[in-house]
């Protein structure tokens, strides 16, 4: 079976999973969750790494480099922020 078709299955199943995972979130977590999915969107770093490292041509490498910088800073900053936000609940976690 063609791998592009299989990829489509992967896409559909992952979308389902995403949908079902999120379906019930308390509003308090909306912002942290948004920030976290946003940090996960930093996965575009994967593509960037390949583009930057494949050494195909100057333009691609530079674009890739910029992409790596952008994606990395998103990931790093993103997770730190989520962490800061969630730390605010931590005190309360312990109490439970």
């Amino acid at each position: 079976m063609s791998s592009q078709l299989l990829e489509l299955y992967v896409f559909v199943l992952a979308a389902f999973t995403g949908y079902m995972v999120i379906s019930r979130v308390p509003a308090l977590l909306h912002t942290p969750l948004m920030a976290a999915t946003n940090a996960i969107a930093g996965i575009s770093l994967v593509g960037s790494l390949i583009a930057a490292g494949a050494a195909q041509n100057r333009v691609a490498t530079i674009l890739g480099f910029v992409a790596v910088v952008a994606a990395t800073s998103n990931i790093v900053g993103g997770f730190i922020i989520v962490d800061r936000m969630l730390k605010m609940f931590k005190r309360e976690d312990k109490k439970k």
Partner: protein
Amino acid sequence: MRDTFIQGSYLAASVLFILGLRMLTRPDKARRGMQLAAVGMLCAIVGTLLNHTIVDYRWIVGGIVLGVIIGYPMGTRVPMTAMPQRIALSLTLSALAATLVGVAEYYTRMANGTPPDRVTMTALGFEIMLGCITVAGTIVAAGKLQEWLPSKPLTYKGQNLLNGLVFLFIVVLLVTVISNPTKQWAFYTMIGASLLFGVMLVLPIGGADMPVVVALLNSYSGLASCATGFAIGNVILIISGSLDGSSGFILSVLMSKAMNRSFTNVLFGAFGSEVKAGPKSSAGMTVHSIGVEDAAIQLAYAQLVIIIPGYGMAVAQAQHAVRELAEVIEKRGGEVKFAVHPVAGRMPGHMNVLLAEANVPYDRLYEMDEINGEFDRADVALVIGANDVVNPAARNDKSSPIYGMPILNADHAKSVIVLKRGMSAGFAGIENELFYDKKTSMLFGDAKASLTGLLAEIKNV
């Protein structure tokens, strides 16, 4: 072998992302969830670095180092209040990365004289389109949130039509470049058009609705990553992009619900709609209204809750619901005390009759003098239809008719939740500053209805 390792790490990353997201929906596990997601990210990166198409690590290392240098302060320095704009900008970056990768891929293929096939071109086209819309859209959103741009909705006549035309133009370009991937002009024009569209999309939306928009753009950016995955045949991009796409979408729907905004209104109707101000404000102060879900979470995790019943509890005949709430909080390990003010209600002992009827044990009831010292220690002061008896004007405002009356120190609690139907005054007919306090959240509605909602919610927390 290496390939197996890469795939293994990707698989692990996917699983970690899913588990992480799932945990992120539960307040008590959210942090664990975030950590799992971060580990997943690490897996994906390490896996990718092993990819055999990567031959030159210099740019990569440089890029990562630079990225960390930029990202770290972005994460640590931003004040909590600037969070939404920070998230928007962060999104700009990841969408930018996705877009650049797409451009690089296209450029390389064209430069190598191996134009992409149709399927790949479709993926690339969507990647670029969604990426650019997100980049431009998030920048505008961040600008509005930071108030560099006017946070009011910017509208003009024929806006919807113009937007539609631009979007049509993008579609035409997309079809063109897909049917003939060598038409480079179409590809690059599409970039410009998509950026323009992103701006036009967000400008008319008011600042208050921005979080919903950012969540939605997050979903677009996920789809862009997904398209990248299709284009370069990378499954982790497909999975996480798709996860992001769907969860971002659902999240934006949930958020608009929580904010009491119709989702389609935010998307379309908002074109031209006015930003609504917070419920009535007094002398320029605004109140912070809250939903049952948030209130439920605050109560569920509080160590000490002091309940202040007032005449409104009696009017709503909410005494039974109040006792139930207290029981639920206690079952979760919190402590609950009832602070009964001497003149709460409309007759001496008004609260006593009702609370006794609801079977609140006498030893949970505290007189004003006994309890006033404890508010500092309370995580939440839950004011149920009381007003005058918690009005700080009695302490501060010599001109107030209630000046000199001792009050319950609700304002000393770490946070205050007030259940009331609206902003009406109490018996004394005067404004209550407490309601405008930063740490006060108003849960509007009939006290009994609100409590019923709280009870249902708190069980799900």
